[in-house]
């Protein structure tokens, strides 16, 4: 990011390639609506581009990126008035047949899992997604979401417990 800040456009491309999938899925699983997710995803990257001059080497790029993402999503939820999306609205894409996880879980099991993920309180889901998708540590999740480590840790653990519960029938 520092190289990009100094004008190296190729450095941005490398960062983008590394983070685009995890960030996209983080946003998509958070808002669960593809059009909105794409819009938010683009806005987050635009903010990164605009804020390049302010980036300093105080945090890992991924923590900085997900801080921006978290803030943008928080704006989104605020505007939407924290509207809860009913469970039945969630759609699960058919799992790719060649993925062992998909075969093991089965479509029914995945739908329950996806519904449980969608039903998580927004803060717990964000903590879980950050942990799972971006590979952030609990401390980094705390930094990105503006809470202390204990809160971040308990959010991750609550989320895991609920998701485990959704898998118990598999």
């Amino acid at each position: 990011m520092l190289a990009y800040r100094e004008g190296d456009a190729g450095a941005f491309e490398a960062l983008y390639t590394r983070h685009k999938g995890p960030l996209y899925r983080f946003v998509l699983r958070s808002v669960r609506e593809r059009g909105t997710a794409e819009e938010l995803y683009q806005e987050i990257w635009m903010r990164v581009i605009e804020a390049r001059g302010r980036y300093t080497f105080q945090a890992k790029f991924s923590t900085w990126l997900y801080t921006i993402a978290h803030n943008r999503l928080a704006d989104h939820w605020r505007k939407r008035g924290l509207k809860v999306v009913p469970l039945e609205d969630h759609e699960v894409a058919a799992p790719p047949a060649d993925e062992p996880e998909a075969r093991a879980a089965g479509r029914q099991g995945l739908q329950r899992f996806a519904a449980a993920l969608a039903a998580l309180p927004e803060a717990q889901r964000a903590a879980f997604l950050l942990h799972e998708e971006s590979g952030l540590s609990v401390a980094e999740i705390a930094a990105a979401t503006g809470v202390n480590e204990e809160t971040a840790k308990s959010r991750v653990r609550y989320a895991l417990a609920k998701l485990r519960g959704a898998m118990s029938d598999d």
Partner: protein
Amino acid sequence: MTDPDRDARVSAHYRALGREEPPAALDAEILAAARRPRARWAVPVSVAAVVVLAVGVTLRLQLEERSGAEQVALSPRVMQAPAAAPEAAPQPRRDVAPAPAPAAVAPMAREGQAQEPPAGARKREALAEASADRAEPAGRASVSMAVGKITRTPETPEQWLERIAQLREAGKGREADESLAAFRKRYPDYKLSDAMRARVAPR
């Protein structure tokens, strides 16, 4: 080492939901935006605007100070006018008693300004007198241009006479006559030295 905050089965289920990627068109749009150079002009332009504003205000303040100083400097000369001169129009400065030391002049002159016609009126009169070919110092001209609508520093009587003399020397007799008449009207009590009279008087 096992991470107490990770669960392999949960992770496997999560990964089985799919590994969606952003559409290629979105990638292209974001990468294109990243390649666009930053608006590097934005900062210099705002800095330049602040500098121009600051310089303008400073110059204006300086000019106003100088203007006040010139008015003060003018007083003693006007006071040299003959005591017997007709008191047609009240000229407050003539009423000021003997020329004090320069340091003491300022406050008195400032007090006197309250009785004078508005400064703007006097300046307009002086400006009306300024002919097009007036030889104005380049520095002052550029200052006027730089700060836009700015009050011109009033001309001292000596500068005005010098300008009339130059008009006369340049063969612009009619303009010199008009300017001299205006000078007489403005400073009816000003006593010309013989040398200056020789230079400005109609030939």
